[in-house]
């Protein structure tokens, strides 16, 4: 008995060894590029926080100086505050309006396909290209948008030059460009809700609002959760929109963390300090993601069969 097992064991061993070898041969390209372009960069980012580095001179160890500098950096604090403003404005738009749009299109019947395509299309075009075009549209004196504002009896709106209005401008652009992303997730989420629930509720005499509150919302909660996480992570890294539309301005009114990182590292050539900020950004996003995962048990419904 023992001997027989040993024999099959040795055959199994050989097969297992061959399988291991084959698997790692298949994985080799992925693992090598993962280590080079994801693994090493992340480790470098962490280590770099303790060094002064400008790419030209060898890095010098400065201990906690970068971190102390970061805590006292008023420009950075402004960038954090601005990024939080974007979070407060953009997340409700994408997570909230995206759901409303999906709900409307889902019930639109015949034109669903057209609406869906039109809403989603801007998300796949080049952000830089359309942001530049929108920059012309938003121009105070010559832009097409202010033309319509004047037509309706208003006066020119300083879309890109007023510290407060500029947030509306970026929110409008962000809505137009990216609402399709969250819209599509919600739309698919809605399609996955069995219609039987609605039919049963209708028989019981529930109205549209009650259906939405007691069927759609809980059954959509895994989608809402997913959208919320990805959206918060994305807005935290917002770069293209402020860089292309306002370059962080007017003044530093729309300078975000990502813009600050870019300017610190590649315009002031302070790579070490820029790396510290980007590592801090990474840790913050990680903490938020973990908190959202921990909090999800309170309101996300996964099992409704």
């Amino acid at each position: 008995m023992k001997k027989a097992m040993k024999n099959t064991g040795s055959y199994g061993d050989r097969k297992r060894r061959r399988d291991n070898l084959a698997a790692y041969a298949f994985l080799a390209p992925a693992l090598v590029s993962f280590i080079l372009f994801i693994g090493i960069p992340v480790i470098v980012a962490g280590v770099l926080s303790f060094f002064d580095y400008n790419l030209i001179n060898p890095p010098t160890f400065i201990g906690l100086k970068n971190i102390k500098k970061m805590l006292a950096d008023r420009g950075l604090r402004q960038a954090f505050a601005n990024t939080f403003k974007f979070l407060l404005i953009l997340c409700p738009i994408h997570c909230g309006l995206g759901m409303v749009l999906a709900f409307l299109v889902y019930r639109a019947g015949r034109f669903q396909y057209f609406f869906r395509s039109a809403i989603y299309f801007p998300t796949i075009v080049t952000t830089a290209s359309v942001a530049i075009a929108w920059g012309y549209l938003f121009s105070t004196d010559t832009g097409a948008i202010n033309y319509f504002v004047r037509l309706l009896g208003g006066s020119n709106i300083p879309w890109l030059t007023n510290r407060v209005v500029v947030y509306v401008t970026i929110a409008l652009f962000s809505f137009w460009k990216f609402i399709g992303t969250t819209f599509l997730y919600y739309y698919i989420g809605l399609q996955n809700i069995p219609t039987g629930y609605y039919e049963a509720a209708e028989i019981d005499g529930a109205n549209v609002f009650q259906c939405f509150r007691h069927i759609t919302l809980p059954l959509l909660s895994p989608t809402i959760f997913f959208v919320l996480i990805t959206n918060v992570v994305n807005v935290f890294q917002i770069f293209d929109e402020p860089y292309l539309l306002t370059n962080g301005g007017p003044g530093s009114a729309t300078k975000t963390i990502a813009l600050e990182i870019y300017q610190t590292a590649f315009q002031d050539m302070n790579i070490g300090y820029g790396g510290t900020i980007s590592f801090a950004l990474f840790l913050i996003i990680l903490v938020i993601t973990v908190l959202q995962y921990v909090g999800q048990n309170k309101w996300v419904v996964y099992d409704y069969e």
Partner: protein
Amino acid sequence: MLAPFAWIISTSLRLSRDSFALPPAFFPTSFHIENYREVFRVFPFGMVLFNSLKIAVIVVLANTVISTMAGYAFARIDFKGKDVVFLILLSGMMIPAQAKLIPTYIVMSRMGLVGTHASLILPAIISPLNIFFVRQYMKTIPASYEDAAYIDGAGRFTIYATIFVPMSRSVIIMTSLLTFLASWNDFINPLIFISKYDRMTLPLGIKTLSGAMGTGSVSVVLAGVTMSLVVPLTLYLFGQKYILQSAVMSGLKA
């Protein structure tokens, strides 16, 4: 949602001095094709177009080979450390792009690649999300297909290349589309890695063009913008089904 596109195209066909003429046009009122010729004259636009295409195609090919090989291993082979390796790879998805920017720049400058197209291509060839998509798909392929091939004496690589890759066509088209668009639309990486005009990709090229033109020739800039939209539009028309499918699959991940 579509009005801005109508305005972009219509204005790109106006005379430069009329680009801000009011009322704004949403349908072409004139056809000044010379704006398009002008883009190529004032800027190495042809080269920039070619760069974008070249980089996106190489990225898609390399990424597809890497993702399908790794996806196959995770889906169909039992091996030591499978779960751990998979988890480590997936954790790569959690790392925000902005946080990788500076360290990637340092790695590239160590390799002497800053300013080259390799600095844009190499970091894009590995995508944990694509590996995940391929794995999910390949797991659903029935074992009978590979068993038959084993009996015929085929090796692992033959089975991967002649059975699993062709059968995973739809997921490969999907990841290829997403990877192509991500490369085509990428702005921040070219911004930090590329400074020479003739090495730029489209988004950076158009930004540079608009900076150089100021507000003088909006129509010419918009002609460039219009051309940059042709490729995403074409892919959208032909691949909408696959793009929708990707949203379904990444929703499942959560």
